[in-house]
């Protein structure tokens, strides 16, 4: 069975990391490391990694703490705004669909009245008089209803724009 540790491994690691290997450590430890494969690998790997770490430490370029904090704040705020906007966007979509559906329904209901209203203006549009004669007189609808429908269709996009815009 292969042994994966050595009782003197911490000692060898300490010497490698403290920079005392090989000149400033015990002769006994040097003799041991020369014959122990595990400690030999520990010293070799630890020295290489420690040297790389120490050489890179001063030159490591990291952003200032205030910048990292500020970026994190900005990102958290943006994510919170996005999360809050999800249900609002859904409701806006439903509202827009309702407005469009209502406008179409109103326009459909008002269409016969519009034709009747056009038929009542033969003096202004004589050419339409003949066409209006074919239309039954459905003038029982209140006169304000089609006007309201037209106004709704025209104003709905403006209302949606004002609702969704940030400013």
């Amino acid at each position, binding site marked *: 069975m292969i042994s*994966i540790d050595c009782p003197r491994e911490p000692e060898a690691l300490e010497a490698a990391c403290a920079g005392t290997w090989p000149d400033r450590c015990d002769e006994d430890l040097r003799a041991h490391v020369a014959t122990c494969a595990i400690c030999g690998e520990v010293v070799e790997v630890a020295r290489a990694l420690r040297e790389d770490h120490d*050489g890179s430490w*001063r030159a*490591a370029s*990291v*952003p200032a703490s205030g910048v990292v904090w500020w*970026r994190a704040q900005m990102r958290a705020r943006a994510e919170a705004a996005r999360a809050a906007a999800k249900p609002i966007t859904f409701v806006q979509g439903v509202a827009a669909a309702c407005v469009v559906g209502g406008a179409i329904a109103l326009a459909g209901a008002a269409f016969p009245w519009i034709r009747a209203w056009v038929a009542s203006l033969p003096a202004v549009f004589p050419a339409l008089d003949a066409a209006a004669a074919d239309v039954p007189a459905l003038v029982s609808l209140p006169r304000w209803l089609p006007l309201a429908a037209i106004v709704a269709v025209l104003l709905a996009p403006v209302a949606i724009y004002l609702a969704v815009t940030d400013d």
Partner: protein
Amino acid sequence: MMRDLTLSDVEQLQAQAGELDEAFQMDEDTFRAFYDRTARALWLYLSRLTGSAPLADDLLQESYYRFLRAARTYESEAHRRNSLFRIATNVARDNRRRVRAAPSVSLDNEEAQPGLRTDPHAADRAARRTDLARAMAHLKPRERAMLWLAYAHGSSHREIAETLGLTAGSVKLLLFRARRKLAGLLGGAALRTRRAGRVGL
């Protein structure tokens, strides 16, 4: 070194940050003190784990963001630090999965070894670090992380287990295997360097 910021930049950032009301698990002063204690070590860890200094910059920011967002309480400074390194390990792993490409550890360029610019007499050390970078590139990410934490960062087996999401019992064996692999690679690299030196003479 910290990147240069002008006074007006700092004032502007502080003014903008003051307008924000987003709360993290930590107040700004505590975070900044913690950041100053951990950022360099974390950046070095990420740069060696990914093999890319620019990528380490991005992952550093992401790691601290996730750390701030994590609603956790910490028993001690060491626990908090280990949690940060664990988050960073996960961030690096997520990034690796996203790009689905093997990391190219290319620390043999000047950008990745800024020490060369300030220490022109470090040719031997630079050669050894280049050998190390090339050898590390042949290791699996978990092996790189484990070796760096154990021998460069000085973490205990328990801390390594906590950071990498392993059991403490498995760390000893995995570390042994990773160390043996790296020692073999470094031995080969050293031999090649010596041969190249002789040829050069």
